[in-house]
Structure formats: C-alpha cells, structure tokens
C-alpha cells in the first residue's frame, strides 16, 4: 500500500509528532506508516484522512503487490 502522508504533512505543515498527537497514536506509528512498514487500521486511516480533510483514497492507495501473498 502506498500513502501520501509525508506530502500531506508538508502541505499542512505538520510534523510527524504533530500528526501523531492529532490522531492519538505514537510518533513511531506515523513514522512506520510513512515508511511503509505498517499498514494502519481502517479507523486510523479514516482519522488521518479527516485531519487532512481528504478521502482515505486520496491518501492511501493499493499497489499491485497488495494482491499477491
């Protein structure tokens, strides 16, 4: 799964810590999502989208690899 959190953060001028606080998770979690090491739950994805006033699909998108394995 790809995500545009880093770009959206830059646009919103939010640090990882700032976004983490807004969606009530640790900074490690945002960091792991951004670097593709962790796929967030639906609830967390919805919260992140809501912070950027976007749809979930605008921020997170499937990759070919998500259909394999």
């Amino acid at each position, binding site marked *: 799964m790809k995500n545009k959190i880093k770009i959206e953060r830059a646009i919103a001028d939010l*640090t*990882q810590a700032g976004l983490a606080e807004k969606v*009530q*998770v*640790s*900074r*490690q*979690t945002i*960091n*792991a*999502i*951004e*670097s593709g090491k*962790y796929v*967030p*739950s639906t*609830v*967390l994805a919805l919260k992140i989208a809501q912070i950027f006033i976007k749809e979930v699909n605008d921020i997170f998108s499937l990759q070919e690899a998500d259909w394999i394995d």
Partner: protein
Amino acid sequence: MYLKIRTMKSHYLFSNKWKKPAWLVFLPSAILAIVWMISQYEIAGLDVKSFSFFHEPFMGKFSLFTIVENNIADEILGILIIVSALLIAFSKEKNEDEFISNIRLESLVWATYFNYGVLLFAIIFITEMAFFWVLVFNMFTILLFFIVRFNWMIRKSNKSLAYEE
C-alpha cells in the same frame, strides 16, 4: 447501513503504572534466585510446614494431601519472578497503540517459537539432572524472551525516528 464496529482496544493488558514497580521487584528477585541456585544456601527461617497436594521426596514415596516441612525460599522467589515478569511483559507502554500492539503480538509469537526451539534442543542434547535445571529455567524463559524481543523491537522503531522528519 453501517455496522457499528468497535475500535480495537488493547485487551488483557495492565496499566502502564505497573511497569516500573515490576522491574523493581523483578531485578532483585532474579539476582537472588541466581545466587540461591549457585550457592544452594537455605535460609533456616524459611523452613515452614506447608500443605502439599502432591508430595514425592527424592527416591521416596508419593503421597497426596499432606503437610510437609519445606524451605519456601524457592517458592517465594518463583512467585515474585513470575508475577513481576508478567507485569513487565504485559503492562501497557506509555504510548500503547495499534502499531505497538502489532509489535507485541509479533514478539509474543517469536518468543513462543524461540522458547520451544531452545526446549527442543535441550530435550535432545541435555540429559538427567542437567535437564531438571532446563525445566526450572523454562518456567521463566518464555516471558524473558518476550520482554527482550519486545523491548528491542520498540527501541528499533524509536531509533528509526532519528533518521526521519
């Protein structure tokens, strides 16, 4: 129509406030247990008559529901170590969230495999009384392996923060 789905909460975990006191009990207990094991020293005051469901002295006769004279140093240390290790392992992190729960689960699976891997090795290659000590250690190792692995993975994810932002 949407089904209302409850948010995943971290279940079966203790409050974070237990973590520090648990370490304060665990470390001295573990050190004392190792000293006790090496020295085999028995503190006289801890010899008490206690109720036993099953009792079988070394090379002796098996009996049920009896009162036996027993040094309770090992019982006390065993209980302190297990309870404090459980609290260390399963007290929430300060910032416990779904990502940390994920690390927790992964570490628990890893610790279970590793623990039984070590035990399988010991079953094959360690024999007689030496194996008795393997069993003694094995009472605690799954928790210890979990604690080490979990904290190591948390530290690793903290470290990767330094490169980002």
